[in-house]
């Protein structure tokens, strides 16, 4: 009886153990390889090898932006918080380093004293760092706090994620402790909590060397090799080059770095997107740095280390540094012109009261549509950009704005040669169409559509003369004859109202009216083309757009997208349908602007023949300063022209923002200076003074 009963108990146990045995066989015999792979995956770690961001150079190979090696001063996170366990480890390490023959007991005996010493050194650390790096103790303490706060945020995030996955008890907390836990996330231990944290970036080599030699009194302090971005030409083309900063959400999401699934020996097949970004990576945030991010951003390397610290050489991937980005601009030329423009003693280049203009200049080569120069003043020093960001952002002169590509201005009379080309192609006028130009457009309405010479007028003139004298009534009439739709389409074909495709993220498309929207607005349909005929009204363009349009005009209608960054992609081109017979007369008009007896840009009569068109657009601007808003009425002065006049090689567009003067007196001298500098840099044939 008893035995039978015990057999029953035995059967139950045996059955349970048999099931377990079967399960074990499944795990350890059938699926062993799968679990071995998983185990390997858990036993190895990826370590990223940082890559170096590419340089930016100008067309002559001058460095505009380059990574320089430097040392960062970092502190072990545990040391920063005077972690008890870490102090003990450090004390043991130091004792062993001082005397390798110490026995365990001797070390234990010396330990309390050593711990005390290290704790004292850690207490004095902020002051020591401040003294070493020549900064204030407060700033070191502030950096401590920043690091602690960042870590706490990280821990809370991780805690919240973990908590959302399971109940509190598995985190070592009962429900009672929960509220407290939420605040401090005490049990969350993260890898960065055992890594050095940067306290002072870019310390001097002397300090780095000193710390390497005399590390003793600074437990937990580490000198970390790093790089920082240097802009050797400081403020030259600052807005074009742009800056780097923490990777933006947009780029990050599009190109996140993902760790590859790791089984040693198979990294080649499964290597993840090493070009992707990790949080905290730097990326371009503006200008060429952003536009050419794909080329500049290198490919990080990866090494695979098992948890014992041994590296697997077969699975190492070395980093690929970022490519060097070549710009088409000549930084030497630009530097010279910038210095000329910023020099308050240049009386022709500054306003009457000696103020430096807010101005933009761009030079486009006619042959290949390369941007030789893209200048915007005022400018700023890229090396101190991040420190001065607040002041720059609140400056009413907008030094961070790249006016040459990102500033849209009413083009004023510089539009007239383009309107003439459209009108002659359309057949509404030809070069010998005579229009009688009084002081205003409509007889009996002297208060609207005045000529700029009001109350004089120009008399009966043909098209080249109208360009020479910048006759408004002539082009009011032409605009009226063309009508809104045809004029807008024509201007659009010249590339206005759309970005040129130069690739800069800040580029503006300017403005042209949407004809479909205005269809039912009779007044707009009637008056807008009249205003647009002289580059006023609902129209604006950037200097780059105007230069590109003029270049297309000079090429007989071949529009080529300007190029700034070499190798970023092909330059789109298209043929604008123009009446090429009439182009010579337009160029004649532009020649007369500079050289004619009643031309508007006599300032440009110089050793080399220049042609072009002035523009003076009446505009107004709201300025808010110290809480008060004032409306300022002034002129945007333009000159768009080309040299040499008989055999055009370069198109130059310049705009001077918000002055009392006219294009001929504000922008033309800048173009003159630009041509002088170009001659100096051998871009134009040397011609003796005539």
């Amino acid at each position: 009886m008893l035995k039978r009963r015990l057999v029953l108990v035995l059967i139950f146990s045996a059955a349970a153990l048999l099931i377990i045995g079967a399960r074990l066989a499944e795990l350890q015999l059938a699926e062993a390889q799968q679990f071995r792979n998983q185990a390997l995956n858990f036993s190895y770690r990826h370590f990223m090898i940082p890559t170096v961001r590419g340089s930016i150079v100008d067309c002559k190979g001058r460095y505009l932006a380059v990574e320089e090696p430097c040392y960062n001063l970092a502190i072990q996170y545990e040391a920063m918080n005077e972690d008890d366990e870490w102090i003990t480890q450090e004390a043991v390490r130091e004792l062993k380093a001082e005397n390798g023959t110490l026995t365990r007991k001797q070390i234990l005996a010396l330990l309390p004293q050593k711990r005390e010493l290290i704790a004292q050194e850690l207490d004095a650390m902020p002051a020591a760092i401040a003294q070493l790096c020549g900064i204030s103790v407060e700033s070191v303490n502030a950096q401590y706090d920043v690091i602690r706060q960042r870590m706490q945020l990280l821990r809370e995030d991780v805690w919240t994620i973990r908590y959302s996955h399971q109940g509190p008890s598995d985190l070592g907390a009962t429900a009672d402790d929960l509220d407290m836990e939420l605040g401090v996330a005490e049990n969350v231990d993260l890898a960065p909590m055992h890594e050095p944290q940067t306290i002072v970036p870019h310390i001097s080599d002397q300090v780095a060397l000193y710390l390497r030699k005399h590390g003793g009194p600074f437990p937990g302090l580490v000198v970390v090799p790093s790089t920082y971005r240097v802009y050797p030409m400081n403020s030259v083309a600052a807005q074009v080059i742009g800056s780097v900063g923490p990777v933006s959400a947009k780029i990050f999401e599009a190109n996140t770095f993902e760790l590859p699934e790791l089984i040693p020996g198979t990294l080649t097949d499964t290597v993840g997107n090493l070009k992707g970004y990790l949080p905290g990576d730097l990326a371009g945030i503006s200008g060429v740095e952003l536009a050419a991010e794909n080329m500049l951003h290198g490919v990080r390397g990866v090494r695979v280390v098992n948890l014992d610290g041994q590296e697997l050489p077969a699975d190492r991937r070395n980093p690929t540094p970022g490519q060097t980005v070549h710009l088409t601009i000549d930084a030497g030329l630009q530097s010279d012109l910038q210095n000329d423009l910023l020099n308050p003693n240049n009386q022709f280049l500054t306003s009457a009261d000696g103020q430096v203009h807010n101005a933009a200049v761009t030079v486009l080569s006619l042959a290949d549509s390369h941007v030789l120069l893209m200048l915007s003043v005022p400018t700023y020093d890229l090396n101190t950009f991040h420190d001065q960001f607040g002041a720059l952002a609140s400056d009413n002169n907008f030094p961070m704005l790249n006016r040459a590509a990102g500033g849209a201005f009413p083009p004023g009379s510089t539009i007239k040669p383009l309107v003439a080309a459209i009108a002659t192609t359309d057949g509404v006028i030809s070069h010998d169409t005579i229009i009688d130009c009084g002081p205003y457009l409509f007889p009996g309405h002297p208060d609207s559509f005045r000529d700029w010479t009001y109350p004089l007028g120009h008399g009966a003139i043909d098209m080249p003369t109208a360009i020479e004298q910048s006759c408004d009534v002539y082009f009011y009439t032409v605009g009226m004859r063309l009508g809104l739709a045809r004029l807008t389409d024509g201007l659009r074909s010249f590339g206005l109202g759309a970005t040129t495709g130069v690739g800069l993220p800040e580029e503006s498309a300017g403005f042209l009216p949407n004809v479909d929207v205005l269809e039912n607005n009779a007044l707009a349909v009637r008056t807008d083309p009249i205003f647009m005929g002289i580059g006023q009204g609902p129209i604006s363009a950037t200097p780059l757009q105007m230069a590109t349009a003029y270049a297309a005009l000079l090429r007989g209608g071949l529009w080529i997208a300007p190029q700034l960054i070499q190798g970023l992609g092909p330059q789109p081109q298209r043929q604008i349908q123009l009446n090429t017979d009439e182009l010579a007369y337009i160029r004649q008009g532009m020649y007369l602007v500079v050289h004619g007896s009643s031309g508007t840009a006599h300032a440009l009569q110089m050793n080399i023949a220049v042609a072009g068109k002035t523009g003076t657009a009446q505009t107004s601007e709201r300025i808010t300063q110290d809480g008060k808003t004032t409306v300022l009425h002034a002129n945007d002065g333009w000159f768009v022209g080309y040299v040499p006049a008989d055999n055009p090689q370069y198109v130059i567009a310049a705009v001077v923002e918000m002055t009392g003067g006219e294009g001929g007196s504000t922008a033309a001298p800048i173009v003159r200076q630009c041509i002088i500098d170009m001659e100096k840099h051998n871009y134009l044939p040397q011609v003796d003074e005539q």
Partner: protein
Amino acid sequence: MKDSQRSTMMASRRPGGPSMGQSARDRASFTLLDRIYRQVVPQLIATRVAWLMLLAIVLLCSASLAAVNICGAELLEHQEMYILVGGAILLVALVPSYRKIGNYANVFYIITTILLAGVLFAPAVKGSHRWFSLPGGLEFQPSELAKISFAMITARYLRSQRDIRRFSALLFPFVLMIIPMGLILVESDLGTAALFPLVLYAMLIAAGARLRHLLAIALIAVAVAPGSYPMLKDYQKQRVIALLVHQQSAKQQLTVDEYQIQQSKIALGSGGMLGEGLDGTDQIRHGLLPEASNDFIFSVVGSQWGFVGCAAIILLYIIFFGACLEIAVDSADSFGRLLVIGLATMIIGQAIINIAMTVGLLPVVGITLPFMSYGGSAMAADMLATSLILNVAMRQRSGPANRSENR
């Protein structure tokens, strides 16, 4: 033959003995070692089945030390000490006869029940109210003792129960079980609580209760069990879910329990047929398996010695259990017999639940692997239980020669 006769003689002499004089009482304190040396050891040596059990325990403890060593060298010294203390407890508890100890079953039961109630008011350790913190960083878990005292009092009750085949006679043992088991459930120690019905059932089966009665009670319990799901704590529900969904959620973010089971399976699976050897796998050495030295020590063994090692460990538990059943069969005294069956079931049940948990067949419940898991309380309790079993074996009134008469 001679040995068994001598042991019987000694056993019969000890409890009653020639009336203890005053001088004998005085000497009692320092003759403890003497008595272990003169009585316990020879009796133990004379008991063949004890050799088998002690061999199993020694092997299990050695495997434990090898496994604990790779989980953390600092744990090794402690575990060595726990094993030595456990061995001492084993020897000392052999000195008084199990019958004499059994006389105090009521007292033990009441004391352990009070301790179980008291621990609920003690400060929480690792988020649970299961441990008393003792001075010197030691921790004591009363549920370990409660298991033993429960087996003892139940054996005591069933011994005197003539008509156990009546359904009503089963009521009292279940009441005895519900009290400590309920308190342990309040401590939310599901694993230990689950042992109580196992132990009770084994003892009732051995005592001769009607199987149909036991089956009926079991069916009722199974029917009621799903209703208790809402009463589980959140993390316990998670564990059930972890077990059920683990296969599907390989790529998603794992909860702690899923992670634990996954790591455990990886440790076992990567051991393969023969294992990675004494050093185990990288995974264990780098501490990626949570509670490796504790509840999941079987996975460590799996990574060290592979399928062969795991099978050997299971075999050792079977040998241990088989030896216990042999002792029970040989014992003429029904208290001793039931006590042995209860305690043996407790140990084998714990082993089965723990191993089933590490291979992912049962949800993660905090339960230790007897003689192997790192920890003092558990080791002491396992050794004490073994001691009681050996106590019965040593003091069998019948030798192997007249076994047949007792069947």
